[in-house]
């Protein structure tokens, strides 16, 4: 979230598309209801199903799964063609005025530079800015240059007419236009729209571009950085934000530091590539501090073994050789390239696409370690559970270990909510039996391996030998010690760069914030964005002063929000060029004459006077937000509609003549998975998966109370399809995709309507995800038996939201 949960109450319009907060985040959704009650806000819901969020919406419109970009494109076209944009904001705070390479082009659904053989945009040179002789990007403040982003954008989205939107999405035109009108009303400086989404946008083969669309609309309306505005990813798990921040994934190191790859052969190359050049004069270009962050991390991990001479233990950091994400890992596993697998609090048998493939992959391992509080389905992938899991254990050689971990109530530590607020939790009880904290389990494994390497030697033992492990009880690192390490401390006196005699932080002291980080090895910090969580003042995540003097819900003394306790990021954009708030009644930030002040921690150098022209988007080397994403995305600089990989249509209605442009032309598809896609003649209906409010993923099926309120797997179908197929509510049905089938109870509803798409009728079948063969709910099939093994071209998030199925009564 750019904003935070309570801030939703400051919105005038709330637009939910690609999420279902009433069901998945009810307690956060209260702030939408609050906005409706207190500000007379209007709620827009666009979703294939009339869901429980729609039940309290002011406007609901249906949409065919997988066609969000067509819808967004239509809204962008409406805003641009009707001139309903926040002009000042767009001109100064976005890259609308930037000139793009004249070679840039877009034809028949494909952008310039496409390499069909590699299914990628090999050269993205034409997607770059025109650079001036001064070394900065060229701009045209009049926005008239045909190569400026603004004009290119107008041209690109002119094709997304209301008729086209309706043709592609199946959304009735009048509903679409009503939504456009309401969205456009927030172009006014004193009105804001808050955009809410979750996996309904991300779980598509063009998921990242979906989100970019929403961000572009918010920029055109001038709603980014505003109270009651922003792009708000609702996010799934309690600490999905924190674990993402800690970067437990291959591409980055803690704090989103891009991890070294094979191309970064040494420390210098590595840092050089990751320290961007400023693209416009006077901009902060904050990422240029990358070397300070990386060095401090290396010092936190390898202490004295990380020296200037060895590139701060650069070689201790493994280099990424290729794709590495849940899909690629399981594909490698499936191909027999993996030996072991550690599964910590994760149930991939249920949560990755194509259950059959996942199970087969696990069966090829030599060993698997499950660390979990619960007896998950994954831990028993080898065990026959009737028709729900048909396997032959005698043929599965994997040795599976199951280690009991403590749950939230049994462990202390911090978590980070989707509003980026880091909060401390206290231990309430002991875990059952012999269960242990995750940290104890990791420590046990580490200490054993370290001892074994020390005794026997082996491959590259140095990182294990040198890894800092200075915890008071090495077998039991305390969360307090760990958070202190994450925050970081001064290893030597940290001095003011402008005045070396002035000591800012004494050696040994906890750092107050990331501004103190140094690239000379004098600071250590496990995660730069968490710097400030445990300063000399103590544990800031445990702060419990919930006072809210501004009334905006900022509660600056409650826990600690990264970065720098900032509650709304880009908040400098809530004021105009001169530093006056666009809406004084919701002031976040204003120029006081000497410094930036207001009701938040400024997202700006505090003394950067408006005359300096330092723009609000300090993490971008341009200083402004990108309507055109240059070469930063793999698949498009402007989002473009492509069909899901399993589409009920024969062609992309926007590019009927070009088969290459039917689905995302650069999305990765593995061998075998392409063949496993189904065709619309065999599987004529669109399947989409989702959560129900009564359950949380694959956990609450273990909780009796939740099993009581939603006991059994079902699928939802519209009345019209039900009639066609002779299905009544409560009947057992079989839903098939090209990868398998599930049996479930039919819920027949008025809430899913057949849509009129490109001249044909498209029915949608809704498939909740929460059930499996383990737990207190009735044993059932896993919905991922049906889903296709393909992900978003940028993030590889699987396409769970749009695929093809058939249905029959049994």
């Amino acid at each position, binding site marked *: 979230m750019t904003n935070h949960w309570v801030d939703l109450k400051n919105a005038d319009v709330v637009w939910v598309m690609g999420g279902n907060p009433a069901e998945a985040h009810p307690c956060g959704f209260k702030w939408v209801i609050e906005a409706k009650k207190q500000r007379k806000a209007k709620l827009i819901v666009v979703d294939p199903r009339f869901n429980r969020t729609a039940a309290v919406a002011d406007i609901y419109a249906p949409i065919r799964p997988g066609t969000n970009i067509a819808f967004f494109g239509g809204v962008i076209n409406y805003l641009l063609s009707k001139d309903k944009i926040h002009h000042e904001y767009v001109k100064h705070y976005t890259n609308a005025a930037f000139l793009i390479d004249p070679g840039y082009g877009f034809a028949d659904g494909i952008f310039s530079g496409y390499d069909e053989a590699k299914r990628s945009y090999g050269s993205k040179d034409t997607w770059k800015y025109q650079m001036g002789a001064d070394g900065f990007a060229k701009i045209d403040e009049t926005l008239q240059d045909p190569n400026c982003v603004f004009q290119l954008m107008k041209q690109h989205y002119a094709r997304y007419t209301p008729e086209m939107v309706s043709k592609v999405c199946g959304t009735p035109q009048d509903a679409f236009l009503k939504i456009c009108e309401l969205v456009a009303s927030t172009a006014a400086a004193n009105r804001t729209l808050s955009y809410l989404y979750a996996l309904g946008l991300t779980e598509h083969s063009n998921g990242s571009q979906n989100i970019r669309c929403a961000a572009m609309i918010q920029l055109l309306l001038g709603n980014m950085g505003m109270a009651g505005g922003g792009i708000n990813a609702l996010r799934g798990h309690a600490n999905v934000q924190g674990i993402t921040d800690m970067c437990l994934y291959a591409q980055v190191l803690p704090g989103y530091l891009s991890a070294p790859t094979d191309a970064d052969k040494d420390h210098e190359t590595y840092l050089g590539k990751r320290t961007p050049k400023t693209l416009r004069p006077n901009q902060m270009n904050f990422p240029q501090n990358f070397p300070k962050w990386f060095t401090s991390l290396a010092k936190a991990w390898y202490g004295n073994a990380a020296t200037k001479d060895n590139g701060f233990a650069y070689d201790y950091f493994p280099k990424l050789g290729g794709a590495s994400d849940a899909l690629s890992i399981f594909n490698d596993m499936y191909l027999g390239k993996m030996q072991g697998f550690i599964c910590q609090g994760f149930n991939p048998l249920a949560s990755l696409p194509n259950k059959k493939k996942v199970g087969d992959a696990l069966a090829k391992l030599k060993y698997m370690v499950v660390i979990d509080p619960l007896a998950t389905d994954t831990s028993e992938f080898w065990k026959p559970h009737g028709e729900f899991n048909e396997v032959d254990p005698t043929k599965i050689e994997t040795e599976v270990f199951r280690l009991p971990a403590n749950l939230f109530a049994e462990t202390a530590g911090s978590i980070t909510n989707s509003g980026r607020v880091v909060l401390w939790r206290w231990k309430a009880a002991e875990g059952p039996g012999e269960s242990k904290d995750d940290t104890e389990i990791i420590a046990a494994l580490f200490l054993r391996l370290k001892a074994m390497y020390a005794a026997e030697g082996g491959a590259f033992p140095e990182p294990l030998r040198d890894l800092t492990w200075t915890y008071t009880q090495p077998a039991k690192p305390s969360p307090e010690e760990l958070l202190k390490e994450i925050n970081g401390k001064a290893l030597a006196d940290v001095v003011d760069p402008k005045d070396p005699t002035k000591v800012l932080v004494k050696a040994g002291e906890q750092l107050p914030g990331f501004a103190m980080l140094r690239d000379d090895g004098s600071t250590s910090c496990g995660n730069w964005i968490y710097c400030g969580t445990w300063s000399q003042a103590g544990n800031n995540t445990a702060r419990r002063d919930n006072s809210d003097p501004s009334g905006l819900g900022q509660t600056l003394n409650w826990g600690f929000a990264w970065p720098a306790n900032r509650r709304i990021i880009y908040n400098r954009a809530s004021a105009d060029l001169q530093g006056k708030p666009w809406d004084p009644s919701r002031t976040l930030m204003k120029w006081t004459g000497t410094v930036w002040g207001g009701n938040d921690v400024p997202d700006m150098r505090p003394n950067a006077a408006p005359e300096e022209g330092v723009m609000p988007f300090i993490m971008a080397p341009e200083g402004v937000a990108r309507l055109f994403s240059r070469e930063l995305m793999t698949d498009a600089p402007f989002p473009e509609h492509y069909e899901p990989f399993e589409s009920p249509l024969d062609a992309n209605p926007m590019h009927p003549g070009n088969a290459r442009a039917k689905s995302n032309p650069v999305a990765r598809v593995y061998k075998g998975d392409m063949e496993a896609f189904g065709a619309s003649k065999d599987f004529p209906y669109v399947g989409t998966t989702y959560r129900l409010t009564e359950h949380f993923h694959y956990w609450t099926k273990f909780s009796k109370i939740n099993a009581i309120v939603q*006991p059994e797997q079902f699928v939802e179908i519209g009345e019209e399809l039900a009639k066609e197929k002779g299905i009544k509510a*409560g009947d057992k049905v079989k839903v098939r995709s090209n990868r398998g089938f599930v049996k479930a*109870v039919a819920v027949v509803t008025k*809430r899913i309507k057949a849509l009129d798409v490109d001249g044909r009728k498209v029915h949608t079948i809704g498939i909740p995800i929460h059930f499996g063969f383990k737990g207190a709910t009735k044993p059932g099939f896993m919905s991922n038996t049906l889903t296709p093994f393909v992900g978003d071209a940028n993030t590889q998030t699987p396409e769970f939201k749009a695929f093809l199925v058939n249905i029959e009564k049994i």
Partner: protein
Amino acid sequence: MALQSLDIKQRSATTTPSPQARQTVEIAKLIDVSACIGCKACQVACMEWNDVRDEVGSCAGVYDNPMDLTENSWTVMRYSEVEQNGKLEWLIRKDGCMHCTDPGCLKACPAPGAIIQYSNGIVDFHQENCIGCGYCVTGCPFNVPRISKKDNKAYKCTLCSDRVAVNQAPACAKACPTGAIQFGSKEDMKDYAATRVADLKERGYDKAGLYDPQGVGGTHVMYVLHHADKPALYSNLPENPGVSPMVSLWKGAAKPIAAAALGLVALSSLFHYVMKGPNEVSKEIEKEVEKEDAQ
């Protein structure tokens, strides 16, 4: 003896009034259906606070689960899909005890002290006094109480009388994520409801209104409805609920009339005997029979 954490207004099967001197605040729970997302948090919070768990059931082709109120499910969400003038609405109502001012259950209950109405408006069942006859079910105009198959006692929402007694809100009201359930004095709740109704009218729901049915003297669980003119849309919420005339007659007029009638019959018999004397076999006939014997 400690005995009473809330003042009692009336108790079942008791002909004399309870102490009435203390004036306490009447409370109410307001359910704003227009803000309800049907998430069932109230259902779960209720089960959790009251330590009741139903058996895990099955899906019957609808979102409702458990399908109906039971001795372990004191509140359930009822979902109805309503399409009017081309507009689809998903009307979701939290069903449970309404805590009537004139409670039909209490009226019908034959067991003294099994049903108590507190002066704050809560109608509570005391299972230790309950004899399991089910008259409360017969008496209730909202079809709420349920008799447990396990112990044959009647159960229903207590409005968390144990929480309210220590000045806490009912578990459902505290949990409700969207604030669709509010809890406070009945007067405050009515005022708040008025603001909600005004908001709904502004949003085009001309017939929005408060459901506080006077047929049962008003209730201590009230609804804000977008279509107050058609409560039946909300999974058959009764339009004009009242204690059934049959129940009123049975547990009302019938009682004194019957007692009087029986007394009258018994007394008439007595007085008849006293006044007319016994109906003995006449001497004449005895003699006749003796004569016959002699023959």
